[in-house]
């Protein structure tokens, strides 16, 4: 029996950019992985290893130089970019909320394809991230941790099949960091969301990851279950 397609698969993924001074610069070389439904891939590695570069490719914010990316077995290039990005949600390192109310931000994604969220649906998403009652707040008045929670709820509003998290807590202080991390771990487990999670927290990695991709200088150092990669 043929294997069912993976939810997200990367094959020999590479990216080279043309640097004005230094000439061609290889940011990512030959990254492979395969994620099944509900699996969490933690991406770890020192600063500059290429973790964000990888995540941007997975959201098609940048184009790979070579290699292939597949969503449910279908090549990224065959999927309309806006639709692809709706199916693969992304939470960035810093929450770039849009000016206006929290509710406007939550409604933004669905509104892009003509879906208007009801008040109750907005409330439910806010409750999910522990922000009930914030719907009408001006985003300019939110704290860093609150803003990051809203940016998570905003990504979840699209019901993505895959969730990309680029160090979603690195801009936060320790208290909000712990809260947001717990929240994400809960959401990912509860929703069985397939997830690529860039993180620095090794303890957290052990708790949430099914697979760990350890990177350095743009290539994979190791890929495997947490016990195998982290204790090597």
């Amino acid at each position: 029996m043929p294997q069912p397609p993976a939810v997200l698969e990367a094959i020999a993924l590479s990216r080279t950019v043309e640097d004005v001074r230094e000439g061609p610069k290889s940011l990512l070389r030959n990254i492979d992985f395969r994620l099944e439904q509900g699996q969490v891939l933690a991406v770890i590695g020192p600063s500059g290893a290429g973790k964000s570069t990888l995540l941007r490719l997975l959201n098609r914010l940048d184009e790979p130089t070579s290699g292939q990316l597949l969503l449910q077995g279908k090549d990224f290039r065959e999927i309309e970019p806006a639709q692809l990005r709706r199916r693969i949600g992304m939470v960035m390192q810093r929450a770039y909320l849009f000016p206006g109310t929290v509710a406007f931000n939550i409604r933004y994604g669905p509104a892009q394809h003509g879906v208007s969220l009801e008040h109750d649906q907005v409330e439910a998403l806010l409750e999910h991230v522990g922000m009930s009652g914030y719907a009408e707040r001006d985003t300019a008045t939110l704290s860093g941790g609150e803003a990051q929670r809203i940016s998570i709820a905003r990504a979840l509003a699209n019901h993505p099949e895959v969730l990309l998290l680029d160090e979603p807590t690195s801009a936060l202080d320790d208290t909000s960091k712990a809260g947001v991390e717990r929240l994400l771990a809960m959401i990912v487990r509860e929703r069985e969301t397939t997830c690529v999670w860039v993180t620095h927290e090794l303890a957290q990695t052990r708790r949430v990851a099914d697979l760990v991709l350890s990177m350095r200088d743009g290539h994979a150092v190791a890929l495997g279950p947490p016990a195998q990669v982290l204790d090597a």
Partner: protein
Amino acid sequence: MLKFLFHTQVSLGLAQAAVVALVTIIVAQLAARRGALIGREVPFALLRGLLQILAVGALLALLLRGPWWTSIPMLAAMILAAGTIIRQRVPELPGAYSISLLCMCAGAGGVIAFMAILGIVEPKVTMLIPVGSMVIANNMNIQALFLNRFLGEVRAHRGEIESALALGAKPGSAVAPYLRASFDASLIPAANNVRSLGIVWIPGIMAGMVLSGSSPVYAALYQFVVLGMIFTAGAISCIVATQLVPRRIFTPHQQLRALTR
């Protein structure tokens, strides 16, 4: 005061130009010390502007006697020149020149043609060239302000724009707030001119017409028409730009380009 020292019209004109240039250069140098980039290019810009306008003055003396259609290539040449000036303001925008030309042809070109066809501007060289050049020059400034502001907004809001893309927004809607802000900002000077007309500002053509003996009321109405044309041309060119520019700053796969200067 200068009148007592210089007796012919041309030498008086030159002396006046020299005084203005001197003052402008001093102010520009003071500005440059406060970090305004623009200060360094002022002396050159002044000299260039002086030579250009002198050449045109000489040329006009010849051309103003030609048939009306000779103004078409002249106006077209002005638009081409304005396009190169706009491009220099936004070197990081791919295709800035062709975008600017299209926008100004639709804006300034369209409005001038419309006015000439309706007979609001008499179709003769002595009308088409001065009025047309005013509309084109203002259109150039509005267009440059629009593009400059828009690229500035995009550079300052990469995070928001890419967040919008990541939420499934099309490039056009991801940059819509910045297009709107640039549109408003670029039309502020032209809108202010219309609003303050007569109160803060009695503009050149009206002054000129009254001096040369036209009825002040007719001169006033005419001035209003010209300012309306300037505003309309600017608005049209920005509307066209709103359609054309987003395509240039995104790749075909809806990715925001680097836009490094």
